[in-house]
Each structure stands twice: as structure tokens, then as C-alpha cells.
């Protein structure tokens, strides 16, 4: 499997139409230092659709891969502010307003005096505003994280690769996807071999 070129590849033999598309090329490393050095070079080679897979978090890998910090915290802060605002409006409307709005059905506010406090009493509203801020922050943090990572998904091409299974144990992988504009099967394969990968393998989609 490891000696691949466009003509001798088991994927593309003669003029037989390949049954499966090529997902990408997978390079295997035996230690995080080698992976990190290789990731540095893959980034410098200008690839965009590629990723590293490790059994545990490797410090400094993000910098080696050139991954920018996520904007997730800013979005979550916005979600928190939204929750606070919704919490206030919800209570002010249901507890202090007397007009009607359409929210799927017509609903009317009901000015309700509670223990002699003003109709709009901020101290009483704050717990609900706080909880809604937390609720929306937490849900949006998880939800946007799923969105950014392309989750949920049923399967992934890498998961049907036997060699890749050791990623949960003691192997480190770099996978360059075939949709990368700089991807060219034979050249990319040679490139990964030159990086010191122990094995290089095509992965079917």
C-alpha cells in the first residue's frame, strides 16, 4: 500500500474507474517531536486542508500548524449579553407591561405587584437575567464549537483505516486532504515521506 504512484495505485489501476474517491494522504509518526517538526514544514509548504491527529494534547502544536486563536469566546460573550437582555425583556414584559405582542400566539403582559416592589425591580430580575446569560453562553459555546468542527457527523474516512486506530494509543498522524489546492497525489506523498514519516498511506473517502 505504501508504494503508490498514480499508475500503480490500487485505487486507480489501468482505465478501471475507481470505486472510491481519494480522501487524502496520511503520514504516520512515532513521537510528538517528529510530528511537530513535520507540521511546521507542512504549514510552510502552504497547505490549507490538513490536520494533525494525536493521542493526547501536544503543547505548541497549534503554533506549529499556524492555527489562529478561535473567535469562540467573543461569540460566547455576545451570547451571554443576549441572554441578559432576553432575561430582562421577558420579565419586564410579563411582569410590568400591559400591551400585547405576537410570539406564535398573541400574548399580553400582566402588570403584577409583588410585595409592594416597583413593577420593574432590577434586584428581583437579576437572578433570571444571570441564569439566562449562563444558559445561552453554555449552549452557544457547545453549539458553535460543534459547528466550527463540523460536528456532529456519523463517520469519518480515517476511522475505517486500520493503521489510524493507533491514534488513540501511541501514534501521531498528519493527514493532507485531496481537496487542498496544492494536493497532487504523487508529489504530496513524496513530500510527506521526505518529512520523515514512518509510513505514508492513501486514505479512501
Amino acid at each position, binding site marked *: 500500500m505504501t508504494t503508490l504512484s498514480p499508475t500503480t495505485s490500487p485505487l486507480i489501476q489501468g482505465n478501471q474507474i475507481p470505486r472510491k474517491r481519494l480522501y487524502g494522504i496520511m503520514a504516520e509518526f512515532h513521537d510528538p*517531536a517528529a510530528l511537530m517538526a513535520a507540521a511546521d514544514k507542512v504549514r510552510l509548504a502552504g497547505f490549507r486542508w490538513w490536520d494533525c491527529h494525536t493521542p493526547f494534547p501536544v*503543547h505548541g502544536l497549534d*503554533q506549529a500548524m499556524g492555527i489562529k486563536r478561535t473567535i469562540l469566546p467573543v461569540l460566547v*460573550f455576545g451570547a451571554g449579553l443576549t441572554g441578559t437582555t432576553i432575561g430582562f425583556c421577558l420579565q419586564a414584559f410579563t411582569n410590568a407591561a400591559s400591551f400585547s405582542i405576537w410570539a406564535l400566539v398573541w400574548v399580553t403582559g400582566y402588570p403584577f405587584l409583588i*410585595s409592594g416592589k416597583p413593577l420593574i425591580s432590577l*434586584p428581583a430580575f437579576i437572578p433570571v437575567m444571570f441564569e439566562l446569560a449562563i444558559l445561552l453562553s453554555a449552549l452557544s459555546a457547545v453549539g458553535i464549537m460543534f459547528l466550527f468542527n463540523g460536528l456532529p457527523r456519523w463517520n469519518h474516512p480515517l476511522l475505517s483505516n486500520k493503521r489510524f486506530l493507533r491514534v488513540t494509543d501511541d501514534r501521531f498522524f498528519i493527514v493532507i486532504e485531496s481537496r487542498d489546492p496544492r494536493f497532487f497525489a504523487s508529489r504530496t506523498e513524496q513530500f510527506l515521506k521526505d518529512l520523515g514519516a514512518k509510513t505514508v498511506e492513501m486514505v479512501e473517502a
Partner: protein
Amino acid sequence: MSESAPAINFSPSNIRGDALSTPGTALRILGFAILVIAFVMGMRAQDQGLFLRTWMQAWLFVTTISLGALFFLIVHHITHAGWSVVVRRPAEAIAANLQWLWIGFLPFVFYWWKGELDFIFPWANLDALKQISAAEAELVAKKSAFLNDKFFMIRAGVYLVTWVVLARFFVGNSVAQDSDGSMTHTKKLEKWAGPAAILFGLTTSFAAFDWIMSLNPAWFSTMFGVYFFVGCCTGGFAYIGIVCLRLQALGYLKGIITTEHYQDIGKLLFAFGVVFWAYIAFSQYMLIWYGNIPEETAWFLARQIGEWRWVSVVLLFGHFILPFLFLISRWTKRWRGTLLFACVWMVAAQWFDLFYLIQPKIPHDIGVYDTYEQILAHYSNESAHFFSPWNWVLLVGFMLMLTGSTMRRLSSMGLLCIKDPRLNESLRFENM
């Protein structure tokens, strides 16, 4: 990147602070002289109550900073923490101040001996209280099994001795490890950190009840012990940050305390000093506001009349809203200039919080008025005595003593827990 970590300089010039000894001694002597002179003059002051409350405020300010550092050590050992080993020695130097801070309580013992403890604690003289407010005296008399001067002094002794013992235990074992490198010290500290946390929680809560809450003996709040504890964290964590930043600015601990450690100190300060403080302070306020029972709301009323209204607003913005917006970002915690600013700000906020807790007095005639507005109008000129000279002289005196003693302690016991088994983990620590 773990592979390219630079070689760390463990030479004495980097991890021993011998040069801090002389200025430390000078600051300490200066601070002590200021406090002695202030006390002698304070005994002749016209408003003895104001003087004693200010003394309590300034003394508790430095005490809460040291207690916060002690709490940092306890949590470090309970959780078997790795990241904080390099900042533990500064925390130990601050916590070690608890060994002499009991001296600051002696003025109250002196006033008790003179029979004048009621200058500050109204419950100490029920007859005098009856003259001012019979209703309040009746309430307070029911608490006299707890609030009487002898039991009060015994309890104070218990708290102060407990803190001395805890500080000696946590600092002593860590320093002993520097010379013998034995793992037994770490084991012992981790084993006793749990019981120490219980002792710490009980003593700080009851100290808060005794020394601050009983200034208004008819008032009570079950949240108060936690409120005081959060204040300890605010002052302690911020002061640890200041000490670490200053040490590095003076050229010590180069390459040892890194941006990663500062970010974690900033996180702790943000979580405890800003958010948790607001959570506790608001919880206390909301329950009392909603319950609307006169003997409870009077405490907040005293903080809304005259100048105290502005003190409350400044506290809300200065202790929560502004630092929350400032410290929520990642880079303000990682960049030294902004973190130093935030730490100094939060130490000041803790002092201001104690001012807000200790100084206001509940007017005795609030039952006379029909409405809230009438009380506000009548007390519209109530002064907070913010610019009273005691407020500043005692603050400077105690802060000089705290800083000087911390410097001396750092010079005598080194700046790094050099034989700690988790030192390497701490040196290589990175936030994900």
C-alpha cells in the same frame, strides 16, 4: 514548546533575594513607627469610635491579604497543584505575615482592659446602648451568651493562634524542603491541607461575625462569613500578583514565572475577586431587599444615606463592573502591565470594601421616619469620613509593615521552592 524550553537560571542572583532585606527592614521599622505614633495620638482623638473602626479596617486589610495567600497555599496542597509551584514562595512570604499580624489586635485588648471596648462594639456596654436605643439593646441582650467581652476575646485568641499555627506549618515545611529535599514535607502538607481548609473556613467566618458584623450587633447575615472570605481572596490573589510582578521587574525569577502563570493568577483573581464577590454581595443584598425586614434592611440603609450612597455606587463599579469588563479578556491577564494595573486596582477595591463594611453607622432614629425619602433627606449631609487622616495614616502604616515584612521574609527564605517535586511541571506549564 517543551523541546525548545530555554535553560533556566538557578543561580543565587536569580532565586535568592538577599538584597531585599535592608529595604524591607527599613519599611517595616517606618511602618511600625507610624502605627505606634498613630495609636498614641488616636487614644487622644475626639472620636474614639472612628479611630478604632479605622484601625480595624486597616488592620483587617493587611490581615485579609495574608489570609488570602494562606488560602492559596491550602488550595495548592489540597489539589496537589503543579502549575503554581513557582509562585508559591511569594504566597508563603505573604501568608507568613500572619505570624506577627496578631499584634494589630492588641489595641482592642487594651481598650477592653480599660473597659472602653464599647467605643467600637456597642454590645460591650448594654446599659449605654439602652440609653441610645432601648429596642436595639433588648435585641442585643438576647445575644449576650455569644456577644460578651470575655468570650469575644477568647474567640479572637483562638482565631489568631490558629492562623499563626497554619502559617508556620505551611511555610515551615516548604522552607525545610529547600534544604533536605525530602518528599515527606510534600506528603505532610497535602495530608493536612484538608483539615486546614476546615479550620480556615471556620476561623475566617467567625472572625467576620465577631469583628465586622457585630459592629452593628442587631444586624445579621448568614452570608457574611463567605463575603469576608471572598475579600481575603480578592486581596490575597491580587497581592500575590503584585509581588510576583515586582520581583520580576527587579530582575529576579527570570524565565521562571512566565506569562502562563500570570494568566492563571489573573483567572483566579477574576473568578474569586470579581465574579464570586459580586455573586455573594448580590445574594446578600437581594435576600435582604426582598425580605424587607427592618432590622436587616437598616444595614443597607446606613450605606445609602449621604455620602455612603456614592461609596456604594463606587464599590459596585470598582469591585465588579469595571474589573469584570477589564479582566474578562485573555490578553489583559497575560500582559504584565495590564495585570499589574488590575492587581493594584483589586487590592484597592478590597480596602474600599472593608471601608464600606466597617465604617457606616446605622442611625438610631430610623424608626421615627415614615418613608425612605424622609430618612435620605434628613441624613443627606452624612459624611463618610473618607478623607479622615486616620484612614490614610493607618493604611500607609500597615501597608509599609506588610510590604517590608514580606520583603524580609522573601530575602531570608529564597524566592523559589527549589526542591519541590512538582517544580519541573510548574516550569513547563502552559495554558491550552
